[in-house]
């Protein structure tokens, strides 16, 4: 597909998908070159300026969603009181995992100075954190990392778009070779 039909088609797919869709998926579904899809997405983003909806770049994909200015009416309409925010302890733990992944529980506890077993379990339950492998060390401790749900929860495009950590270059930490053993069980 190409030309003038591409933009409305991309818009349709974003609408029915609900969640984030990658350029690759759009490109494959529409049989259009990724560059053209990318260009159309850029146009759509501009088109939605001043509208109730927006095109957001989240978790490596694009999603059509409402603007925060209208959260009040949307929530009232859907009958949602409020969405569950993370506790401070959960947020801190999640930050440590996000910037230092893959990381063991002992390493998390070393930074926080308190036991983090329970917090970690809750983060896993909420699909923000998952096991990503085991460290090749005595006891083969479980390594934890963040999920795609984590990116969506914070509206992040990818891990590189995390806010900068003082005295640290997250890019360096994230691209450092990790001693993860075995294949990722979830991928």
């Amino acid at each position, binding site marked *: 597909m190409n030309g003038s039909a591409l933009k409305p088609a991309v818009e349709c797919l974003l609408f029915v998908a609900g969640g984030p869709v990658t350029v690759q998926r759009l490109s494959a579904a529409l049989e259009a070159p990724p560059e053209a899809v990318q260009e159309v997405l850029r146009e759509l983003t501009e088109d939605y300026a001043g509208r109730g909806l927006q095109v957001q770049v989240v978790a490596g994909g694009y999603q059509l969603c409402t603007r925060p200015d209208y959260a009040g009416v949307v929530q009232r309409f859907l009958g949602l009181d409020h969405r569950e925010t993370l506790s401070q302890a959960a947020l801190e733990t999640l930050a440590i995992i996000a910037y230092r992944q893959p990381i063991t529980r002992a390493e998390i506890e070393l930074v926080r100075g308190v036991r983090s077993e329970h917090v970690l379990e809750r983060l896993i339950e909420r699909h923000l954190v998952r096991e990503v492998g085991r460290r090749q060390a005595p006891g083969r401790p479980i390594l934890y990392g963040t999920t795609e749900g984590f990116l969506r929860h914070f509206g992040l495009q990818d891990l590189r778009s995390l806010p900068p950590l003082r*005295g640290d270059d997250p890019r360096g930490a994230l691209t450092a070779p990790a001693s993860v053993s075995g294949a990722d069980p979830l991928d």
Partner: protein
Amino acid sequence: MPAYTVKLPQFEGPIDLLLTLAQQGQVDLREVPLGRIAEEYLASMQGGVDLDEATEVLWILAAMIEMKARLLVPRDETPVEPVEPSAAPSDLQEQLEERLQEYRAFKEVSAALRALEEYQQQVFARPPAEDAGAVVLAGVTVDDLFHAFRQVLERTRERVGEIPAEEVRVADRIEAIEELLAAHPEGVVFEALFADRAGTLEVIVTFLALLELIKLRRVRAEQERPFAPIRIVSVSS
């Protein structure tokens, strides 16, 4: 009951007093030959054993042996926190400081993440088109299901027979359907749910059981195209 009396050059008195004094640090256990006390006590027992006293003495001696052992073995001075072998004492302070810095950085960045979270919670996307928890009736309308039900009902009506007297329960039919589907992971055709000899009551109850299972999302009904056979498949398979 008078406690066993110890007679030593350094001490003479009840054995429990010796323990108390040792615990208070008034007697240095390193100077007390515990082996000799034990031997003398055993010698004194020749006349017969007072079980209560023997237990008491055994307990007191054991406690003193443990205390003495602690005094004799050099104390482990290693701190509980493992320290990097290369770290000199002055580095320890630095390490703690570093760790604190690191923690502060994460605390700071948590605030930034909180702001992102707050923004994102004001944003709503459509729920995915295919809700994983939705009742699945792929290509099957309620009419189709009802039509199929009517057909089976007709089939039973054509036969002249008696309505069985025994009670047919939905729970039993649910169990039977699930057993059948467990044996056929690829699914079965709708008609297979109903035994050929099934009476009207059994057919009705089986159909109710099927509807219940669909409602509970334990089975799916599928139909490739209109008028094609309806297949019933276990959701777990």
